[in-house]
């Protein structure tokens, strides 16, 4: 099976790029985009510092060695130099802290949300309640993944579509709407995380945490529980289907009428 994948990868270069993903997704919400921007800012700053520091080190290792007859210098302190390399990094940090603080203020502002979705973590599934629209349901890993994941299941997980990334009931959310998420848990701590929708937040028993998302593009976004919550922590995926507002309203009314089968065709 692996060999076939590698062969296919040679023919389809885009396929191999998808498999060798090395960076954070930019995502489709304002919060995921700002997280990505801060991430890339810090990444490039550290790359530049790294090149400078390691460059000096490597130069020194090549030229200041005994085997090429280099005689050691005698200097071993300089207050001026110490001040310089205390102050400059400090200034760089100030430059980083300003956009990061701004981003944080924006990310934590959950006011003026269009709809509110309450998410409750259980061992090992999620419950979703649409507070305004009166829809609620549980969502857990789909049967195909669940059967294939067992020890000695005899199934090749490479053949399972969206292995460990698919659920029985998807969360449907409208695009271009500020959605406030209320997170809590009934048993132990979980964390709700869909990378392309931005950061995660813990779902903690006795707490109601808040975060917000505003999805800009319709699509299916997949994530998982991110806080160790027991033996099946690795098996509680999250799937969010973002659809235009009109379609979302249609989905809500179908759900309310309990026409679950029909509602699941929305957006497909």
């Amino acid at each position, binding site marked *: 099976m692996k060999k076939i994948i590698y062969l296919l990868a040679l023919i389809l270069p885009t396929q191999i790029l*998808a498999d060798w993903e090395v960076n954070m997704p930019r995502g489709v919400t304002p919060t995921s985009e700002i997280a990505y921007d801060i991430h890339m800012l810090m990444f490039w700053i550290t790359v530049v510092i790294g090149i400078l520091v390691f460059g000096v080190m490597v130069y020194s290792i090549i030229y*200041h060695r005994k085997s090429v007859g*280099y005689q050691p210098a005698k200097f071993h302190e300089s207050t001026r130099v110490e001040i310089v*390399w205390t102050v400059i990094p400090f200034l760089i940090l100030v430059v980083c802290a300003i956009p990061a603080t701004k981003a944080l203020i924006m990310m934590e502002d959950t006011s003026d949300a269009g709809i509110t979705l309450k998410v409750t973590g259980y061992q090992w599934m999620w419950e979703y309640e649409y507070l305004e629209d009166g829809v609620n349901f549980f969502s857990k890993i789909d049967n195909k993944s669940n059967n294939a994941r067992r020890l000695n299941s005899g199934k*090749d997980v490479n053949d399972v579509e969206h292995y460990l990334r698919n659920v029985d009931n998807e969360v449907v959310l409208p695009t271009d709407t500020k959605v406030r998420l209320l997170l809590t848990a009934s048993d132990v701590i979980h964390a709700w995380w869909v990378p392309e929708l931005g950061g995660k937040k813990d779902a903690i028993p006795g707490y109601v945490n808040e975060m917000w998302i505003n999805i800009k593009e319709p699509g299916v976004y997949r994530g998982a529980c991110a806080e160790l919550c027991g033996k099946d*922590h690795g098996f509680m995926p999250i799937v969010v289907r973002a659809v235009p507002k009109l379609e979302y309203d249609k989905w809500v009314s179908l759900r309310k009428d309990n026409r679950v089968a029909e509602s699941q065709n929305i957006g497909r």
Partner: protein
Amino acid sequence: MSTNVQDIHEDHHHAPSGLMRWITTTNHKDIGSLYLWFSLLMFFIGGFMALIIRAELFEPGLQLVIPGFFNQMTTMHALIMIFGAVMPAFVGLANWQIPIMIGAPDMALPRLNNWSFWILPFAFTMLLSTLFFDSGGPAAGWTLYPPLSLQGGNSMPFVILSIHLLGISSILGAINVIATILNMRAPGMTLMKMPIFIWTWLITAFLLIAAMPVLAGAITMLLTDRFFGTSFFTASGGGDPVMFQHIFWFFGHPEVYILILPAFGIVSTIIPAFSRKKLFGYDSMVYATASIALLSFIVWAHHMFTVGMPLAGEIFFMLTTMLIAVPTGVKVFNWVATMWRGSMTFETPMLFALAFIILFTIGGFSGLMLAMTPADFQYHDTYFVVAHFHYVLVPGAVFAIIAAVYYWLPKWTGKMYSESLGKLHFWLTTVFVNVTFFPMHFVGLAGMPRRIPDYPVQFADFNAIASVGAFGFGLSQLLFVYILYNTLKKDVTAEDKVWDGAEGLEWTLSSPPPYHSFEKAPRVE
């Protein structure tokens, strides 16, 4: 420098021989050796667990273990490596080195010293025995977050008691270190003339005394929640699960520096020796170490940015965490300045120390990225974090320990290790450590959570690479054991001053040093 040279073979102690020698010893060198051998054993036990983890993660799907056992392995691997491998190794180095670096005959409190060591084998026997319980060992992660940890099986009280014992051992060791350094320095050795390794250990000892009781409090509250009906951390009884995390990380972050400050001291000793040039900015190194230690008490909540802290709290902990980059940067710059225009040679200890600087700095870079709260909402609890802390702990703390062993082994034993085997060990270790941990940055950023026994197929390739690296790394450490064996069976041949660029009182003693290191205190200029 001292001119005190003593006769090595003059054995005028009347200690028992054989096994009883090791059980009853109060000698700092014997106890140092016990700590180091014990740490090596734990390194292999913890490493074996890591290989079970990496074998399971070699490809998607569950092939070897069930998820519950996988969680026991991740939990035990962390507890063993932190409390069993890295901390005892540093205490072992402190035992061997502090008296011979400050010109003392032994540690200040020799019987306490014996006891601090002998607690450890019992504590770890108890901890490891829980794996054989019907309900298995601890599986809630080494951080023991409630409510999950309260769901654990019968192992929980045993784990908590063994962590208490480890804490007692660490605190006793720290008291001994402080008493020795403050009272037993050779005449003329003022605080600001102490070797930098002594400074870093002095500061580490204060961190231990401040941090370990906090952990003891947190786990005792867990114990009473589970068995005596309290609800410190259970929401249904009016308790607060997040409170545990605050208390735990108030211990946990100083603990991070407990694991790295002595490593800074080792690298600050080895770089000047092989650059044949004095350590650049000794004073600023001391101040930087002290500032890192102080800052470590006000940054704890950066481990828990996603628990839903108030905005002001998130900003405060982000800024204080970023601030740590300043003294850490000063240290790295000082090391580079020490190398600059030196006359370097590249024996095994120097190679490990150089790799430490580069790879620890890479771990520092990812640490700086993690400090940025908006981005941390994405990084938190992913393999990016796993990559980060393994970069600072393996090519960080562990490389420093290995460097220290190569550097001082000829002094301790009077026998020179094989330089070519040492270099082979270095290159294998350094290549495989990167093959193991570098790809973890990628899968973490791409969205792989940590502490999962199985993963979506999109993460398969990098995980396979990391697993190959882990097995390579593990096998390379067998070479280290062979090198030690090979060295110990040689005859005594090493010179007193093993390294021509090395400075310090330990090099004025014979190799190996006499039983009561400095019977007459040397004078320091």
